[in-house]
């Protein structure tokens, strides 16, 4: 699978490359899922939307890593909540406006543009009005906003099975499933850096953690999809999510063993400092 292959080379990805992977991967994935679903008149390809969201989450997790390395004084969680707060508005705006204009399929593009511009403006506000003077604040916030929006959109698509605004409203909003996407997406973006915070944090370990958390989110969307798309499509998503989670949890544990001072079954405090 392409995701598995990509992670092996994640050790020192620079943000530009990761942003490109994130944007292209998520947009192409969402469109691919939507086209396959509508062309074959089925919903089993909705899981592609959930996979596409993982690319966006990777980009967002890396942006959190870069912005929070400067120390913003309010902790990591607030920035994840900001990403999703910006994202949810961008998603609903994009889908609604695309529907109103008569080009339903343009939704993801409008979402992406609005999210990028809005995130950039928030970054400018942070630097110019609140006087943070963090050099990467603009692009970091723009990345975060786009990542939040695309993750929300990908998982919303995974639950509803189409990109139609009315369907997303009915399947994702009215049922309340947006709540789980919102918070699971937020944690997928903020948890990896928060969980690996410390002087010896490594990029590959953080990113593997974010894929693992996305797997968990995919299990959740799979359960939700059982109601909206039926047992087959839902279970497929659930099983793929579980497999992703399992594979990347093992990989994460391997990286922990590589990075930790020692992984011991049991024992007293380290001998040098007792």
């Amino acid at each position, binding site marked *: 699978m392409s995701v598995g292959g990509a992670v092996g080379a994640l050790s020192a990805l620079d943000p530009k490359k990761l942003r490109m992977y994130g944007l292209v991967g998520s947009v192409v994935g969402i469109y691919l899922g939507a086209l396959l679903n509508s062309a074959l008149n089925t919903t089993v390809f909705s899981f592609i939307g959930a996979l596409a969201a993982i690319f966006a989450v990777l980009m967002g997790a890396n942006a959190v890593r870069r912005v929070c390395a400067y120390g913003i004084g*309010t902790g990591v969680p*607030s920035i994840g909540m*900001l990403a999703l707060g910006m994202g949810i508005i*961008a998603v*609903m*705006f994009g889908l609604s406006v695309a529907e109103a204009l008569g080009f339903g399929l343009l939704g993801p593009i409008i979402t992406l543009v609005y999210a990028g511009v*809005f995130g950039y403006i928030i970054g400018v506000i942070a630097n110019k009005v*609140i006087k943070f003077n963090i050099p990467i604040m603009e692009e970091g916030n723009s990345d975060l906003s786009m990542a939040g929006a695309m993750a929300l959109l990908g998982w919303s698509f995974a639950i509803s099975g189409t990109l139609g605004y009315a369907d997303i409203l009915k399947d994702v909003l009215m049922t309340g499933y947006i709540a789980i996407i919102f918070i699971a997406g937020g944690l997928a973006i903020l948890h990896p850096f928060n969980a690996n915070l410390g002087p010896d944090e490594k990029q590959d370990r953080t990113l593997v953690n974010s894929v693992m958390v996305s797997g968990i989110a995919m299990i959740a969307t799979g359960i939700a999809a059982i109601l909206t798309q039926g047992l087959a499509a839902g279970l497929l998503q659930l099983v793929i999510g579980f497999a992703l989670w399992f594979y990347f949890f093992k990989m994460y544990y391997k990286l922990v063993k590589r990075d930790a001072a020692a992984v011991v079954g049991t024992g007293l405090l380290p001998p040098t400092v007792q």
Partner: protein
Amino acid sequence: MNFDINTIVYILEILVGGLLVGIGVHFVPVGGAPAAMAQATGIGTGTVQLAAGSGLTGLLAAGFMMSVTDNLWLILASGAVGAGIMMGSTMLTGSWIYAYAVGAPFASAKVNYDPITGFSQPPYVAPGTVGQGIPTICFVSGLIGGMMGGLGGAMIYYPLYLINGNAALSAMFAIGIFLVNAVIASWNIQGTIEGFHDPKFKKWPFAFRACAIASILLALAAVLITGGA
């Protein structure tokens, strides 16, 4: 989507709601991690988290009220009171812990005398700390902040619901606008604040400007969204 005078009113309401959230955050006495070790005055948690907890409780109350009436004042008051109750019970039970588990008298290190009760503060500040607990001035300030947050949440929810008539959509949207404004305001505070008597409170015009820009952009997007079904 027809653009008329009502749309402008809706945009203004969302803007005012966003500003209320942004300024309300400055009133909430948060001590961050140090306050959890009774090392600083205020509530021992982060700004965004507490503002979100209280403001969204207010949103629940306002949403409930809106389902049975369309009187703006009742909805706003409901949101404010719901948030105030949450903030009040949080600070009250927090006070129990400071008084009966840590065993420390309440004191603020930012002022010499509590402006409301007139109690002297420095003799009660433990050595090596910058105050502890929730003195009356912080309690009142926190209530004002919490109620402003709830009011702001209700103020955002009300026009959204009138535009799209969809409670779930409006609620998620209000949560989104709320979080953006709360995070911007908390960046302005940079961690901890004791309330409106804190010198840091004078920084609020920065947050006012920042939240105004962000809220206008969000409001413009929000009024374009239809309720679909």
